[in-house]
């Protein structure tokens, strides 16, 4: 019944094993495996289009894997019942890439929203709880603003407040620094670190920003074209002798070696297919 009790603290919070994912016939993730431990900040890093958001969608059971397994809180997300998924999701918080705030609700009501749906607290209590979280993310005083009136950084902070309002054990954050100026982005990183220290929470952050990744990560997973290049501590990744990792770190664009046969094939493939 209670998944929290079945889950021993030594076990990883997330275990991904041999995950393969497609969009249509395009393979997006290829044999991805990694763990996330209790209380750690795991950063999934990679260039844009490398499959980071897709991986996140699989961890959230928004997409179904073709093969491989994903266990979250010890439960196999592939064959979890919808009632159990419902319960598991109440222990997770997610901040999507652009915040995904409900446009018809103001800042405060956005943060209250999960409480309204999942608790029977009275209105004032919910309001106080929401304001506490808004305080944490430095959004106090902006309760009555609508999402359309917020800057990018404010949207992300509000989304973060909404993600933590149920005090989750697992927090996901897609591209916290994308589209923000460096100062605001550094503030947000600071906030993520503070959250981890204040709450008993594991955090998975998806980002393509190196600086941000190195600032917050306990461990980093580098994803490239759907494959895991390296998993390890910040130093492990910095010192990795993998050429592609070094290219990524030095922001060097890749000189892709072109195989003439494959190149011809790519050009003519669609045509002969008809």
């Amino acid at each position, binding site marked *: 019944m209670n998944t929290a009790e079945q889950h021993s603290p030594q076990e990883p919070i997330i275990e991904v094993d041999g995950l393969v994912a497609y969009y249509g016939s395009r393979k997006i993730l290829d044999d991805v495996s990694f763990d996330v431990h209790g209380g750690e900040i795991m950063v999934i890093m990679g260039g844009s289009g490398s499959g980071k958001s897709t991986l996140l969608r699989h961890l959230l059971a928004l997409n179904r894997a073709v093969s491989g397994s994903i266990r979250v809180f010890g439960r196999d997300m592939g064959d979890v019942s919808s009632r159990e998924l419902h319960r598991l999701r109440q222990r997770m918080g*997610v901040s999507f890439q652009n915040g995904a705030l409900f446009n018809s609700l103001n800042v405060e009501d956005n943060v209250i929203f999960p409480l309204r749906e999942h608790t029977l607290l009275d209105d004032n209590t919910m309001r106080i709880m929401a304001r506490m979280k808004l305080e944490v993310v430095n959004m106090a005083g902006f309760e009555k603003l609508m999402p359309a009136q917020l800057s990018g950084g404010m949207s992300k902070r509000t989304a973060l407040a909404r993600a933590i309002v149920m005090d989750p054990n697992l927090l996901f954050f897609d591209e916290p620094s994308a589209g923000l100026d460096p100062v605001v982005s550094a503030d947000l990183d600071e906030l993520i670190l503070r959250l981890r220290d204040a709450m008993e929470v594991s955090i998975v952050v998806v980002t393509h920003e190196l600086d941000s990744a190195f600032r917050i990560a306990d461990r980093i997973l580098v994803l490239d074209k759907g494959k895991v290049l390296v998993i390890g501590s910040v130093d492990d990744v910095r010192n990795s002798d993998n050429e592609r990792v070094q290219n990524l770190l030095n922001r060097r664009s890749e000189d892709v070696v072109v195989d003439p046969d494959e190149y011809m094939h790519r050009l003519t493939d669609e045509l002969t297919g008809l």
Partner: protein
Amino acid sequence: MVRPVIEKVGIGAVQAIEEAGYQFSLFVESLYWLIVGPFLQQPVRLRIIVSEMMKIGVLAIPIVVLLSFSNGVILALQGIATLKDFDAESQVIPGIAYSVTREFGVLIAGIVVAGRSGSAIAARIGSMQMSQEVDALRVMGIEPVRFLVAPILVSMLIMMPILTLFADTAAMIGGGLYSGIVLSLSLTTVLDRSFDVLVLYDVMQGIYKSLVFGLLIALVACSNGFSVTGGAEGLGRATTRSVVMSIAMIVVADMVFTYFLTR
């Protein structure tokens, strides 16, 4: 030359069947949440149903009444002009009563709701889909079908019959008023002639249809909203498609239903 055409038709047919299947699954899931939701502490919220009823139904009353009233007058104009040749002008009143209750009242209500709410619902759900609000709902453990679709479905099924009754009444007033003045009939004569012929079945025929129309509009609008892809342009396309498709389905469904109900 022929093969691509056949292929296109084939692909189109498969997509249409897939879409119909998806709409049916939205219907079944909505029913599930309406019945089972309360026991799982995940009820379909009354507050949302009421607000949908306001948007879909109450705010549509003025335009439905205006169109139906005009439609009643048009029927009287045409009826009197045609029946004059047979010296049967006075038959215009039962004629209007029949055609309005069985056909035009519900058709006007359906087309107005399809135009107003069909587009608004598709646009609202579509923009939520695009900005990942639908995903946000899902990961919060809030099923989008329970939260978004079921309330719309319920309010459609409540408001369409009510709007139809408004439309029937307005059209009969329009038609009766005009015929009464032109043919110099007293109010009681007009009322007598209307209600003499009208039986409950005539009114119910419109009500049955209104339920079917409401169901179609809700499912078409929601499914178009959820399947939005490709930015603002995709959103516009889904919105237009939702209106065109629901009006088309209403008219075809009307024909089919009328065929069976009048036999």
